[in-house]
């Protein structure tokens, strides 16, 4: 545990482990590329990138149970009382960021992960308008079903876009209205924490075997789709 500096804060306190940061930024890039390839009809690339998202989602869900405290779903403060008590803090300075996800961020993560699971699920079975290209499991459903899933896939992308925009607006709000920079910690993994909190909170450290377990599961999901799909 690092000693407090002169300002009474522990600098470089680890809040996001390396794998959750890699997950975050890979997902951001993949969503952008999937949007582009989806719009311009590069279906083969779109399929492969979508498969990468499947791997990431499996990893993140695993990490929600086996990752460090800040990554765990059990650490999400989403009981109604916790949410209600949090909201007034959004309008008061100084804002003191919790170590880990705040209640609204937790809801946002659940919504994003849930919608992305839906998106990957529909994409795996979707068919294009000409019946020329399908998701890896498209051959298991009829053309009509594949088309309906493709339409759901397209509609739920609107939900994803809305969630991404909300996410970006939230980051801007924390930066501008609450003088709280959330981006740097998602890059470096660390931020300043007051000595008292630092003494009672574990840092977001992890071990290679734990990460390996998630990589194995994510890889297994991708392998299974490639092996059993077409």
């Amino acid at each position, binding site marked *: 545990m690092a000693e407090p500096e002169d300002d009474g804060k522990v600098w470089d306190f680890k809040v996001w482990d390396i794998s959750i940061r890699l997950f975050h930024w890979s997902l951001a890039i993949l969503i952008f590329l999937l949007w582009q390839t989806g719009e311009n009809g590069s279906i083969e690339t779109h399929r492969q990138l979508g498969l990468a998202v499947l791997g990431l989602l499996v990893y993140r869900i695993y990490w929600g149970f086996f990752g460090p405290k800040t990554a765990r779903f059990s650490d999400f403060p989403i009981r109604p009382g916790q949410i209600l008590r949090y909201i007034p803090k959004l309008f008061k300075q100084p804002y003191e960021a919790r170590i880990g996800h705040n209640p609204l961020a937790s809801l946002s993560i659940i919504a994003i992960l849930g919608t992305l699971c839906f998106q990957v699920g529909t994409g795996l079975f979707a068919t294009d308008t*000409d019946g020329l290209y*399908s998701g890896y499991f498209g051959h298991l459903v009829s053309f009509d079903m594949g088309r309906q899933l493709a*339409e759901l896939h397209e509609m739920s992308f609107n*939900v994803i876009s809305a969630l991404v925009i909300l996410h970006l607006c939230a980051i801007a709000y924390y930066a501008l209205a609450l003088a709280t920079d959330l981006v740097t910690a998602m890059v470096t993994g660390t931020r300043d924490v007051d000595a008292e909190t630092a003494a009672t909170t574990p840092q977001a450290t992890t071990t290679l075997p734990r990460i390996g377990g998630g990589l194995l599961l994510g890889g297994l999901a991708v392998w299974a789709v490639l092996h059993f799909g077409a």
Partner: protein
Amino acid sequence: MKIRVILSLCLGLCIIACGEEAAEPGATVEAAVTLANGRTVAEQIEYRKGQYKKLGGAFKTISDALKSGSPDMAAIQAAATSVPEVTEGMVDWFPAGTGPESGVKTGASAKIWAQPDDFAAKVTAFETAAANLATAAATGDIGAISAAFGATGGTCKGCHDVYKTKG
């Protein structure tokens, strides 16, 4: 709690989906106009959508079969034979008045009627490719079928890039 959030999200999506469906049948004056072939504009649009769905189904059958390790030749042949039948007279599926101006939901771009000669040429290119596909399917040669299928798919895309909108 988490599950409830995910469930309500899915439900929300379903509601959006149903909303889209309910808005589909056009109720405009133009939609009820009777065409020379005896169908109303709305019926004509529905008819051609139905034919394109059958075409898509046939294409998916061939595409699925070609991707599988052991292609079902009988299924490929049946689907390939059905393509020229299902698409018979395609150029006439688009009489004047059945475009987006009808108010009926359609993916047919107004460009079809603005550039009728080019549109007809693209339909002919498809018909030629589809005939070749049926011939290739009859030989049972997977390589020839794959090539002919790719060429036919290319003519779908070639036309859709210009003349199909999201609708």
